[in-house]
């Protein structure tokens, strides 16, 4: 382990990171966002969900730097008197939770299907790849919408709220597995035909175990890049779905929900309710995208 760490810090990837101030800034930003949201219950200046601490009289307070603002509400308050900064922190928590879980689930589904498809080959492979092709021609949003919509109907509106988050995670995961499956399948096909796999079969070692120990290391790089960028898109997808009203339930607002709520007040002049969650969302996704872009270039042997 120490050896790997040493090799990593000696290598090109770390060098490229150190010499790229934009990427460092992005990484730090992303880190701040993640820590800020993960520890939101302890770090946020107010608790937006504790009804006892919310005062309707505080509602519609503008950001602190405007004359009518109050200093304890840095970004102002919303229509119910909740501190916007705190709602953003808590909202980011949900957003990141859904995003990261969806990507992890997507990876598991995609990598498994890719391994199976590549290893077993034949009709199963053809079938899985066909499904993948067809799914690819439909935008992810649509697929996620459909799954969510179906769940909504199947389960009934009241119960749906409780499991909405899980459905959402599954919907986003289901709309994004294809890219992992294809990458892993490609690698699997290459490795499968190599002699050491056949040799291992002769010895009696489970070929699946070999595939795991040999294929997976080969795909870690590309998969990592895909996953990083996917977190960005997953977050955007979740935000969009929540904005459309078919994402997380209102009791657990994510950044998308916050933006939707704030949207209603744009015309009456209380722009901060929607703008700050919007900026938070953009900053989060932008820093992730920068990281992902850099990672892709850093890991690309052709560009070294």
């Amino acid at each position, binding site marked *: 382990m120490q050896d790997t760490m040493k090799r990593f810090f000696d290598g090109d990837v770390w060098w490229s990171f150190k010499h790229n101030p934009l990427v460092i800034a992005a990484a730090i930003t992303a880190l701040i966002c993640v820590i800020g949201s993960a520890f939101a219950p302890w770090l946020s200046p107010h608790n937006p969900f504790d009804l006892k601490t919310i005062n309707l009289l505080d509602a519609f307070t503008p950001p602190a730097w405007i004359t009518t603002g109050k200093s304890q509400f840095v970004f102002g308050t919303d229509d119910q008197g909740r501190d916007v900064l705190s709602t953003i922190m808590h909202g980011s928590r949900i957003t990141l939770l859904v995003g990261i879980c969806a990507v992890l689930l997507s990876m598991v589904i995609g990598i498994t299907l890719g391994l199976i498809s590549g290893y077993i080959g034949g009709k199963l492979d053809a079938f899985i790849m066909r499904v993948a092709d067809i799914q690819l021609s439909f935008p992810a949003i649509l697929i996620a919408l459909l799954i969510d919509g179906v769940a*909504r109907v199947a389960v009934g509106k009241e119960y749906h709220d409780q499991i909405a988050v899980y459905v959402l995670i599954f919907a986003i995961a289901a709309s994004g597995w294809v890219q992992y499956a294809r990458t892993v399948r490609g690698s699997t096909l290459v490795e499968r035909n190599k002699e050491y796999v056949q040799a291992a079969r002769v010895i009696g070692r489970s070929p699946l175990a070999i595939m795991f120990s040999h294929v997976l290391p080969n795909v870690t790089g590309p998969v990592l890049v895909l996953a990083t960028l996917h977190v960005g898109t997953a977050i955007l997808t979740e935000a969009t779905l929540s904005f459309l009203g078919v994402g997380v339930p209102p009791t657990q607002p994510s950044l998308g929900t916050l933006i939707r709520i704030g949207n209603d007040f744009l015309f009456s002049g209380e722009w901060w309710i929607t703008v700050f969650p919007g900026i938070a969302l953009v900053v989060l996704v932008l820093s992730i995208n920068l990281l992902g872009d850099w990672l892709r270039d850093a890991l690309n042997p052709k560009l070294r």
Partner: protein
Amino acid sequence: MLAFIIQRLLQSILVMIAVGFIAFSLFNFVGDPVSLMLPPEATAADRDEVRKSLGLDEPFYVQFAKFVGNALQGNFGISLRLGRPVSQLLIERLPATLELSMIAASLALLIGIPMGVYTALKRDSWLSKLILTISLVGVSLPSFLIGIFLILIFAVWLGWLPSFGRGDTVKLGFWTTGFLTLSGVKALILPSITLGLFQMTLILRLVRSEMLEVLRTDYIKFARARGLTNNAVHFGHALKNTLVPVITIAGLQLGGIIAFAIITETVFQWPGMGLLFIQAVQFADIPVMAAYLCLIGFIFVLINLIVDMLYYAVDPRLRAERSGGGH
């Protein structure tokens, strides 16, 4: 050539059947089909009659066949939410979505492709770096946020453009168009920018990365070694080779515009199919959902087919596969 078309047509039909099947399952299994077909005041006797007439006691494949038959005639039942035939609703809303999508798609292509080419050819210019940065931000912005910011700036603060609706439209046959009135055109501006921006950044990055790949190939190197001018190399050779794969991907992306319209239409309250669909999802209005699904499926399949044929027409390698190559 013929064999190719037939093969693709068959595939398309298969996909449509799959889509139809999903829509059918939605219809029948996720919710009570009888209540879907009847207005809420229907009595129990009505229901039984409908049940029999719908043949819900009949085997599965018969029901599916009837569904397909109905679908092909455009009969998708009655909207739960609005109480009107779904097909009517869709036809009413179709022009709005299509006009919006067409403008957005044109924007995406007309700006995205040239910018992509420019940033590939002039990699180190400050303009390229600026465009790339903006494109990175563009990819990180969800379209609804773009719409909101645009509304904030141009409708709320500046008051130049409307923030919702289509403006005045003119009816031409069954089509209603917003192109012929000033308010109609004004109303189109913000939504089409919102819808097209995301696609434009995607196409820009796609064209750029594809062109950079092409510029690294041996045949470009060889073209330079033969002393061809920069124009010949960049626009005669590199551009043509870049656009060929870009066609496929761009075509599919543009199909996505019709689906992404859902978001834009929600932000701008644009009376199109997308808004109809999202309202259907919120309300669990199954007939509309199923119909929208079939329609979208059909549009995608159609786009896929056109893109495949375009690819075939443009890439000589695919054509020769059929006629049997040289020796």
